[in-house]
């Protein structure tokens, strides 16, 4: 069973991640009253890039393998994310594992940037870490809230608990905190500070080209996806349809809504400076910690 789930998770992540991005771009175009590219555009970009020439600005082994590692670790995160509503017990990990594999991928990108030796890339990497430092605590606080409520550190248990006990103050507020941090977690405007094209020309990705760029882009798309999945599955797991393929589809719909929301925000908001974003994040962190306190109190 669990293996099956993981396969499905992986497949969903790999195959559908670009599509969500395509949809988001479409929505953005509509808001900008443009025609916009077709929804399949991201697939086309990636495939085209895979075929293009692979330019290496350094002979470093790290530089060579970092993109793959990033993609691989985000895939692992995808495997660990409960995408269907059914508690798939076999998934060999818990929230800590989830977060740390996410971090592994992020640090792969950072190291990649550093290895390229390009100042744009390196400042982008630094920003990446700073974003990580300000966003992850919120996600963690939200997850710990869930863990405290469900008395388990396993994501599936949290989901199951929420399904069983219905919404509670702490869970809802934790979900809200997560939602407020989601935009930054997905690295979309106004929080696309690490790779700000107009500013530091795509930051960590500046030296990437061809297949490397494709891999990293795919990886980042998958990251956006898993964040959304985590939010919807842990904090709004309803409706729990069975058989579980149905619930997966329900989850996909919810994720789609999130993406739409994100696209709208992205379309209407300018980029923040990192310090501004941190002020914002500190406020959100406050919400998350409040949620945690509620959870400890037991509401």
């Amino acid at each position: 069973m669990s293996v099956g789930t993981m396969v499905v998770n992986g497949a969903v992540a790999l195959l559908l991640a670009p599509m969500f991005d395509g949809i988001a771009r479409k929505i953005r175009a509509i808001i900008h009253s443009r025609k916009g590219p077709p929804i399949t555009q991201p697939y086309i970009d990636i495939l085209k890039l895979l075929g293009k020439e692979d330019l290496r600005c350094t002979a470093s082994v790290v530089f060579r393998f970092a993109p793959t590692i990033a993609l691989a670790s985000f895939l692992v995160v995808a495997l660990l994310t409960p995408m269907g509503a059914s508690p798939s017990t076999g998934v060999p990990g818990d929230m800590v594992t989830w977060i740390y594999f996410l971090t592994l991928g992020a640090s792969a990108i950072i190291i990649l940037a550093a290895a390229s030796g390009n100042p744009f890339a390196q400042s982008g990497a630094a920003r990446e870490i700073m974003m990580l430092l300000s966003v992850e605590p919120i996600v963690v606080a939200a997850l710990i809230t869930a863990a405290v409520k469900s008395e388990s550190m396993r994501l599936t248990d949290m989901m199951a608990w929420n399904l069983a006990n219905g919404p509670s103050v702490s869970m809802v507020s934790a979900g809200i905190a997560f939602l407020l941090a989601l935009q930054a977690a997905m690295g979309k405007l106004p929080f696309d500070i690490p790779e700000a094209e107009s500013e530091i020309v795509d930051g960590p990705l500046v030296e990437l080209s061809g297949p490397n760029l494709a891999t990293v882009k795919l990886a980042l798309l998958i990251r956006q996806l898993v964040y959304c999945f985590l939010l919807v599955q842990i904090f709004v797991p309803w409706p729990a349809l069975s058989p579980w393929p149905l619930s997966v589809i329900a989850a996909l719909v919810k994720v789609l809504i999130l993406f739409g929301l994100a696209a709208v925000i992205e379309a209407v908001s300018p980029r923040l400076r990192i310090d501004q974003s941190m002020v914002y994040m500190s406020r959100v962190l406050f919400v998350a910690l409040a949620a945690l306190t509620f959870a400890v109190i037991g509401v």
Partner: protein
Amino acid sequence: MAYTNLELAFVLLLLGAVLSGPMRSWRSAGWTAAVFVGLSTVLAWSDGLKALLGRETVRAFIVPLPTFGSELAVSLDPLGGGFVMLITGVSLLATIYSIGYMGSYRHESPRRFYSLLQLFIAGMIGVVSVADWLFFIVFWELMTLASYFLVTFERGDPKAVRAGFKYFIMTHVATAGLLVTAVVLWRSTGSFAFEAHKSGLALMTVSFRSLLLALYLLAFATKAGIFPMGDWLPDAHPAAPSGVSAILSGVMIKLGAYGVLRVFWGMLPDIGTRGEVMTWGAVIVFLGTLSAFVGGLAAMKENDSKRLLAFSSISQTGYIFLALGIGIAFAKSDTLSSLALLGLLGAGFHILNDAIYKSLLFMNAGSILYSTGTRDLNKVGGLASVMPLVAAAGLVGVASLSGLPPTNGFASKWLIYQSSISGGLHFAPFVAVAVVAFFVSLSTLAYSLKYFDTAFLGKPAAETRRPVPVPGTMTLAQGVLALACIAIGLAPVWAVNVIASVFGALPAETFKVGRVGGLAAIPAGGAVPALWSPVTLFGAFLLCFFIAEMIRRCGRASVRTVPGWYGGEEHADDEVRFRAQGVYSPFNEAFAKVYPHVPIPRLPSLGKLKSVFNLDSWLYGPLLRGGGKMVDKVSRSHVGVPQLYMIWQVAGMIIVLALLFVLIR
């Protein structure tokens, strides 16, 4: 009488100290030392394993001091056994490392190094292998003394000398507290034995006991480098030769945790002190969290490689104390036994891991120093091309320092999070601890990546001399440690089993060991369910890696090497080098703006944090200055005029008379 191998090891170390003392050549002295340390390591491990796996106490009686109710005797219980193995193992590698490393001290004489090094190791072994406070203190002081002379090895450098002095005095002040407690309990029990003191503590009133426990905690926290007391650490560790720094940070400061375990886990009375134990556990947790946080942030700002690692030592020891405290807090409760075990396991495991990767990283920073002659991360770069193996080891080191799976650092942090979250279910504040711990681990990632990226990746630096390749012995030592990191990371179950036996518990109470060496926490005894199956996940990761690589290659793209793109301009490598000081500068500035706005917890900004961290400026400095004024006043009373002195005589005479009348009447 039967000699244990441990005594033999100790004697061998002393012998080695004597033999390698007179040698003039660095190499011969080094190899001699290495041989002796190696031999004693083998012997010590044989005893340590006996104690650890056999779950027995290796005893051997040496010299009695009946009138002091004290005796010099080896008493190596599983806890001591584990530490002995850790100490000797790391020390051996550090010694081997030093053979190559000390080559950069040609002008100095090896006499002041290897003998002291072996005495230092011997002292540490002694500390963990006695069950008698008197000799505990003796060995403790021997350790401090030897390490003091090692820290000040570069005695020509006033900074090193000052750092060593600070270290010596601070640890000594703390040790005085230890002496006081020992004497107090000796007086009430007439013995120095751990057991006797345990009963002695049990008999005391709560307030008095708390006083003694506070003294204990002060002493051990100071040695462990816990934030307010451990202020000596960031000065002393960089000052020492890197091999020694490895031992200092790797094992010596862990002995502080050892002491805390001995006292707060082993010596607290069993009955009727649950609330008290809970309080002490909470105190230790608080200290741990505080120094984890402060150390992490201070390290992010640091540009001196070894200083950065020193701060990270403070942070990691904070983690250890954090878990330790949770373990201690629930140790005396019957229902939450496995939660307590969880905490202790986390602490023990993190001690092991931090010992491994921190010594690895200090050796790594030492290699940078050796090769480029500087510790300033701004002045180095792109060293991976000069010393690829060292760079690889460094990568593993930083990975496990920042706890990236599947390295060992992750396994222990996993335990720590689990214990703090499950602890939070029974004592709410511990949840906040969990959040802080996560945040700190992210900052750990930040500064360790900063260290690795700026030193080994990027463009070679122009400021420093051409880097020289490092000797094989240095690479060897780091390689071994790096392999240990990965091995333990992949098979945490074995480590957990061993460490559980240190605490005389069976892991099965807490963990269901999965088919392929996974760890599944059973929801019993206060622990929450959690799962970490390194092998499975690493297998999955490899699979994903394969897939990702397939995707990457499916386009069969051709490869071409090109110069870097700097917005379309040509630049020399050094012009476009991204220096360490720039890495988190926006963040650091941002911190200054952000944190005051955070309602909870209200933290000082990084800049202020530095000043808070710099105890010299606001604590010790004024203290010393005030003391100096007082001393000056007193000394001014000696004006040198004979009459005055005679007046003192006569006045003293009169006072004496008066007092004696009062006393005797």
